[in-house]
């Protein structure tokens, strides 16, 4: 799941746009109407959506890879089945979202092939958490519990998004994400109530994932990393809250649960400030964040390599299928 846009081209000038048409569009947005794929929309709206939804979709697909590392290794038949179903859902979300993005890209003559090729060339980014390594089975639980927990918070924020096809896809995705969080929580609970070894790998996993979880929602403002497209997303009623509000909601929901399991986070300063009415925490290293989403994270190259091999190694299959479609 992704809702943070760093390199948007959504500042594109609105050439050839009729101001009256634009005003009518904005009136619809203000009235809470849903925009559909065939409706007129300003270019920056379309381009902003393409960025957002293609990143979201491709992040679901890249997000399958770290968890997938634990699918064949899961410790019981039940866990093997559970995590396989979960990763399959993520691929399904990716498919659903890429279909929505493909419709938006149609006027530009672009297809899914372009999306995959942009991913491989580094032009299309994927979410920071999926650049990180997994080390133990506890990571399989952590991704389901806290990464998907964070995803639920940022996606719920867009459940009323102005673009109808995306909004409807999100309804289904959010419903499934709730199961994922439960799946993750079940793995975490078993470890938390388990042997010393199990508790150790659990705490170690949380320590490792903590900075990535804080980074999940993106920087609080554009000042941090140079540019952020959160404002335009709010103007067009695609999302409601800003990055920091989402992060606070996440901390509100999950920190009490973390502490109640007897776990700690690697930040001695973290506390709830009653006066400010929010959590105070040590900022993660935002420079590192910038590096990570430029595909310079710890596992960026390896994960992209997997997609590249899958894409190139199976190209003969796609050729064979397309031959049949055109009947030549």
């Amino acid at each position, binding site marked *: 799941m992704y809702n943070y846009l760093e390199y948007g081209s959504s500042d594109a000038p609105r050439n050839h746009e009729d101001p009256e048409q634009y005003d009518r569009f904005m009136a619809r947005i203000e009235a809470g109407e849903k925009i559909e794929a065939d409706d007129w929309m300003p270019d920056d709206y379309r381009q902003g959506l393409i960025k957002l939804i293609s990143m979201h979709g491709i992040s679901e*697909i890249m997000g*399958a*890879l770290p968890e*997938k*590392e*634990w*699918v*064949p*290794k*899961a*410790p*019981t*038949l039940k*866990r*093997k*089945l559970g995590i*396989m*179903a979960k*990763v*399959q859902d993520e*691929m*399904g979300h*990716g*498919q659903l979202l*890429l279909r929505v993005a493909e419709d938006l890209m149609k006027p530009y003559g672009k297809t899914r092939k372009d999306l995959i090729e942009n991913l491989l060339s580094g032009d299309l980014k994927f979410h920071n958490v999926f650049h990180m390594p997994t080390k133990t*089975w506890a990571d399989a639980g952590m991704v389901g519990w806290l990464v998907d927990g964070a995803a639920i918070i940022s996606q719920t924020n867009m459940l009323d998004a102005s673009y109808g096809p995306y909004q409807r896809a999100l309804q289904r995705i959010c419903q499934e994400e709730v199961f994922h969080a439960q799946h993750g929580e079940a*793995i975490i609970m*078993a470890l938390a*109530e*388990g*042997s010393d*070894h*199990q508790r150790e790998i659990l705490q170690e996993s949380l320590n490792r994932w903590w900075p990535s979880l804080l980074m999940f929602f993106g920087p609080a403002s554009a000042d941090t990393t140079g540019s952020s497209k959160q404002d335009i997303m709010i103007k067009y009623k695609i999302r409601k809250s800003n990055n920091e509000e989402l992060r606070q909601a996440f901390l509100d929901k999950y920190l009490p649960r973390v502490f109640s399991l007897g776990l700690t986070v690697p930040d001695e300063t973290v506390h709830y400030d009653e006066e400010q009415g929010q959590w105070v925490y040590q900022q993660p290293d935002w420079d590192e964040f910038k590096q990570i989403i430029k595909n310079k994270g710890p596992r960026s190259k*390896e994960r992209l*390599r*997997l997609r590249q*091999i*899958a894409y190139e*190694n*199976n190209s*003969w*299959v*796609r*050729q*064979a*299928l397309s*031959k*049949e479609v055109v009947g030549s």
Partner: protein
Amino acid sequence: MERGEEKVITSAEQAKQDPTYLQALKELLYQLADDDFLVSFRGSEWLGLAPHIEEDVAFSSITQNTMGHALLFYQLLEELGEGKVDVLAHDRKPSERKNAIYLEKKNGEGHYTEEPYYDWALTVVRNYFYETFKKIKLEAITKSSYQPLANVAGKVLMEQPYHLAHWKLWFEQLYNSTDDARARLQTRIAEAWEEFGDVLELGPYATEMAHFELMISEVELRDRWLEEIELMLGTLPSRTLGKKYGSGREGEHTSDLDQAIEIFQDVYVSDEGAVW
């Protein structure tokens, strides 16, 4: 129990009364469970790497069903006192495993997390051949003298034909498309012809299985499978079906099974007493 009496065994307790019956039944169950477990393990390695996203979703769904079938067969073994399902799946030595050798074969070159040069042609041929066989075996088992097994076979047959249809479609589409795709399938068919033999075997208790009406005979199983495959291919390869690496039904296996075991028991053995 004598043949022809049409005696039905309705419970694990009853099956345990006759040691020979019990032995033949367990043998059959291990074959069914281990076959499905290995096929679904190899399927799970593909997750995220299939030729396109839609196939990833479909293949994963089939793999989950198939692993679910393995679980059902392991449960029948658990009822017979063979141990817990997770021990049966994760913690048996290669020589105790009864899956056919062709089914343990790696998906291709590389590892699922590193340089996975997996071969879709192998996967299509293997799954099409296997699901064709599985349907015949399950249909025979619906008439098995062991009622709990016949019931499970009936349940599995509610979804398994869709798996077969999926792989049959892949097989037909690729076989009838580009020269390249057909050649790739043909190479894998020729390879399968040297290795698929033990899939169709019922192992050291084949005679007892037929005698107790647990299962049809090996000859019948094999003939029906060849008939189905001939319908698809037009003509069958001229050579006899081989079992190049031996018979998994006798507990013979290759290093590919060792590789599979090492992966699927990775977490399980990291803390054996633990509840996961």
